[in-house]
């Protein structure tokens, strides 16, 4: 390996061209299933047959019995293709070593500055944690790809030290981003779904080859295991589920969390399986779903297959749900009853119309530490969150968080929470984050966890501030604490509403601390570390309507209806924005996106000229609806929405495309449904009939 450090970027690129590397090509394998076959090139000595792990979850004997004895079994191989995350801003670092203090500072584009400090100090550089400061300001999008520890981070710091403290900056190009920042998905799955002709699903057996790339990324193994296998039964009461995942090394870029991370792959499997089964028994796919939904009185739901039981016995339950109303609302919005007419009308225009459902759930708000930290859960770390809340003398409020925004509007959402909790206006609150110097340790933002876990930490911090303020108000007003009631930002003596202090007056006096009751410390300054008791479980129904051109095979998404239940919404516009972006990315996977390697391991889709990031103009207006089932897991009743769109939408579009292609007798083709691929499928079937 070689690195070039120069005074200008142009110099560095010139110097790079001057390095001539003589490569000795070795045999390569890029396909996860082929990599496990006898005779495949071996990447690492410690992983025979390139197998990193075999992970299983669920009830094997029960599932084998259910599948083997079932009236109807449908089997299908499905590929969830490799994707490139494509944040607007690529990754980059500036590393600075201070030779006077032996301290390192790194500016990074990261979702997890505290975790990076820990990893860099303890596992990469072998230096004390308190000698590194990580700053991750204004991250321009991430979608999971910036959770991880990358070689460039340590490189910039080492280089700055070697240069006696000169700052060293590295910013990847888009091509470098495509080749060396993580990719997502890349599963090859064999699914078997079993049940009765009356539409009772009795078993789901899944075998997945998960491509992990040439080496492991920070939490690569956690994605196709915990975050995948544990939600494979979706929102259905499937009594027997068993899943085996083989994690595989291949000569490709490493694979890790990309928006949804495991849950889109699981949703794709179960939602395709439901449609395949409905098709097999001749039942309406909405009706099949209705018959198999977990009933609303069954929550908290303990999956009988053991999908929610960690290796150490800790359980996660599906906390809440009410699936049928969301589906009914979506079906009504899309006009499901007139689907047949819409198909006929489309034929007259040379189009094949199809409609697809995805009645998804996701597990987010990760996660109870004793569960996610168990061996075999792929994470090996805790997952609590932190908040510090200060009310300064002037009454202005600073909330400092361990979570890390990447463009989601945390500053707005958190300010709303604190304003609401303390009866303040948002203008008086600022939210700080992104710097390990000055923020409490936090695990960062991913897994749709910020509002439910971080938000709860903020609520608790506000509660502690309010309680201390109440005690101090009693002191100021010479009343008993029990007699102080809080109305908005006013702390009043019950029955004497003229005797009151505002929170700002209390803060001024308490922060000065001239007069304190016995045992009370000055300042309104409270820190909370909050470990969530459970994950949260958003759900909903997404419906895609597509039209396929009979001559070209081009698929157009013509309608998109989404009814999501993300619990209570703190800021509905931000929630809608998250749904829009997630839907666009999920539809992108179904219709256009795909990272493609040739057999020599060259990334053919190495730039945006060959990797189709969707344009806004390719989408219809999204028709969003909601049901609201507050999460019982946290005081806000929120669930999280960062990934729901990406989790639900891919399967909805895939099911719509298969519905449109049903006149050709096509049961399944793999994504992305590009015009050439769909055209080929239509013509193959024509040729056979």
């Amino acid at each position, binding site marked *: 390996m070689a690195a070039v450090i120069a005074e200008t970027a142009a110099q560095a690129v010139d110097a790079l061209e001057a390095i001539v590397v003589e490569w000795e090509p070795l045999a390569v394998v890029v396909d996860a299933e082929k990599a496990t076959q006898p005779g495949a090139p071996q990447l690492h000595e410690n992983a025979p047959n390139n197998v990193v792990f075999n992970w299983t979850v669920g009830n094997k004997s029960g599932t084998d019995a259910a599948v083997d004895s079932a009236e109807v079994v449908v089997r299908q191989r499905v590929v969830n293709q490799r994707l490139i995350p494509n944040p607007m801003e690529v990754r980059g670092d500036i590393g600075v070593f201070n030779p006077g203090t032996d301290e390192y500072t790194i500016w990074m584009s990261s979702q997890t500055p505290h975790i990076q400090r820990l990893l860099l100090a303890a596992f990469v550089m072998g230096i004390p944690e308190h000698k590194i400061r990580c700053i991750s300001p204004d991250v321009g999008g991430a979608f999971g790809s910036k959770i991880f520890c990358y070689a460039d981070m340590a490189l910039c710091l080492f280089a700055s030290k070697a240069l006696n403290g000169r700052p060293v900056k590295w910013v990847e190009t888009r*091509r470098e981003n495509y080749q060396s920042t993580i990719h997502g998905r890349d599963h090859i799955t064999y699914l078997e779904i079993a049940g009765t002709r009356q539409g009772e699903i009795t078993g789901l057996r899944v075998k997945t080859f998960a491509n992990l790339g040439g080496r492991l990324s920070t939490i690569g193994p956690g994605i196709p295991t915990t975050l995948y296998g544990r939600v494979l039964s979706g929102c259905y009461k499937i009594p027997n589920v068993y899943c085996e995942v083989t994690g595989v090394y291949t000569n490709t870029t490493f694979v890790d969390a990309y928006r949804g991370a495991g849950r889109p792959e699981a949703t794709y499997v179960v939602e395709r399986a439901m449609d395949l089964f409905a098709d097999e028994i001749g039942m309406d796919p909405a009706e099949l779903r209705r018959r198999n939904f977990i009933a609303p009185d069954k929550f908290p739901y303990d999956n009988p297959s053991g999908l929610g039981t960690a290796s150490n016995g800790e359980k996660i339950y599906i906390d809440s749900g009410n699936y049928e109303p969301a589906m009914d609302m979506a079906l009504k919005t899309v006009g499901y009853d007139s689907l047949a007419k819409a198909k006929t009308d489309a034929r007259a225009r040379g189009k094949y119309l199809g409609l697809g459902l995805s009645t998804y759930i996701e597990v987010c708000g990760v996660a109870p530490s004793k569960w996610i930290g168990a061996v075999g859960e792929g994470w090996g770390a805790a997952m609590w969150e932190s908040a510090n809340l200060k009310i300064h003398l002037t009454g202005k409020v600073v909330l400092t968080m361990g979570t890390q925004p990447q463009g989601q509007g945390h500053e707005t959402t958190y300010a709303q929470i604190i304003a609401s909790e303390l009866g303040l206006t948002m203008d008086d609150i600022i939210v700080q984050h992104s710097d390990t110097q000055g923020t409490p340790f936090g695990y960062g933002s991913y897994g749709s966890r910020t509002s439910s876990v971080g938000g709860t930490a903020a609520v608790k911090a506000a509660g502690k501030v309010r309680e201390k303020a109440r005690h101090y108000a009693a002191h100021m007003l010479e009343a008993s604490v029990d007699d102080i009631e809080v109305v908005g930002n006013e702390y009043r003596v019950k029955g004497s509403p003229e005797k009151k202090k505002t929170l700002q007056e209390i803060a001024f006096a308490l922060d000065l601390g001239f007069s304190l009751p016995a045992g009370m410390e000055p300042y309104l300054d409270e820190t909370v570390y909050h470990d969530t008791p459970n994950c949260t479980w958003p759900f909903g129904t997404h419906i895609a309507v597509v039209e396929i051109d009979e001559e070209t095979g081009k698929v157009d998404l013509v309608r998109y209806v989404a009814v999501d239940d993300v619990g209570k919404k703190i800021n509905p516009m931000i929630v809608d924005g998250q749904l829009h972006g997630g839907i666009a990315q999920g539809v992108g996977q179904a219709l256009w996106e795909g990272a493609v390697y040739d057999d020599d391991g060259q990334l053919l889709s190495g730039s945006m000229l060959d990797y189709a990031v969707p344009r806004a103009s390719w989408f219809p207006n999204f028709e969003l609806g909601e049901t609201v089932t507050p999460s019982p897991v946290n005081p806000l009743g929120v669930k999280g929405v960062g990934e729901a769109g990406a989790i639900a939408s891919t399967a909805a579009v895939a099911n719509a495309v298969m519905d449109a292609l049903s006149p050709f007798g096509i049961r399944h083709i793999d994504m992305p449904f590009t015009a050439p691929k769909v055209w080929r499928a239509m013509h193959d079937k024509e040729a056979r009939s």
Partner: protein
Amino acid sequence: MIPAAFDYARPASLDEALTLLARGAGSAKVLAGGQSLLPLMRLRLASPGKLIDIGRIAELRAIRDLGNGATAIGALATYRDVLDSALVGRNHPILASAIPGIGDVQVRNRGTLGGAIAHADPASDIPAILLALDASIAIRSGNGERVVGIDGFFQGAFATDLAEDEILTEIRLPATPAGAGMAYCSIEQPASGYSMVGVAAVVGRAAGSISSARVAITGVADVAYRATAVEKALIGSDGSSAAIDAAAAHATDGQQVTSDFNANAEYRAAMAAVHASRAIEAALAAAG
């Protein structure tokens, strides 16, 4: 990425540009709108020793009325200039309908028609359109001007009839044949927005049968080409849908059809026929 170092000159006149080009022959490259050349340089797929920036030579940007339905478009007229020209819109509406599908707003504001055909990208839309329009190309060098027909101008992928010391100065479009309409139909590769297949058709009808036809196709082969077999089958036919489909089936006759991971040769060939048929239908509909 950052281009390799290069020299840069910005001549004030065409004559000065030609002198500089002759002096730098071999290593100098002409820069017009830069929408194709500069990305290649940034990726270091092209590393010219010298750029001769003709982008501000006003005399090359004019759009002139040649009378009787003919038009001359200066090599440096941008896509936006052409779109904004009522004259072009009236005389050659195929340009006005196709250009909004090229690049994005920034590309259309900077990119030039002359640059597009001098670059000769095999997936570019403009070459097919100019082939169908029967354009002539005016070319200058120190030895004076020569004017060549568009047939034969494109010689291969990124290769044209232009010599190293020549600058393309003007695109001349003749009047549309009487009774003819024109249309461009394409299907794009979604990532790049380039046409996987694009078909331009200028087709005329007289006394109940097809009297004239120029059909040109891009994206399908190494170079945009006239689909002469389609034209031949079309001329004299009744212009019915069946006749058009039968003619369009010859869209890739004699061509080595491109295959890549976005679309294989089989699909491109099929789409060439589909879009030839659509372009011819639309051209006839426009002819009224």
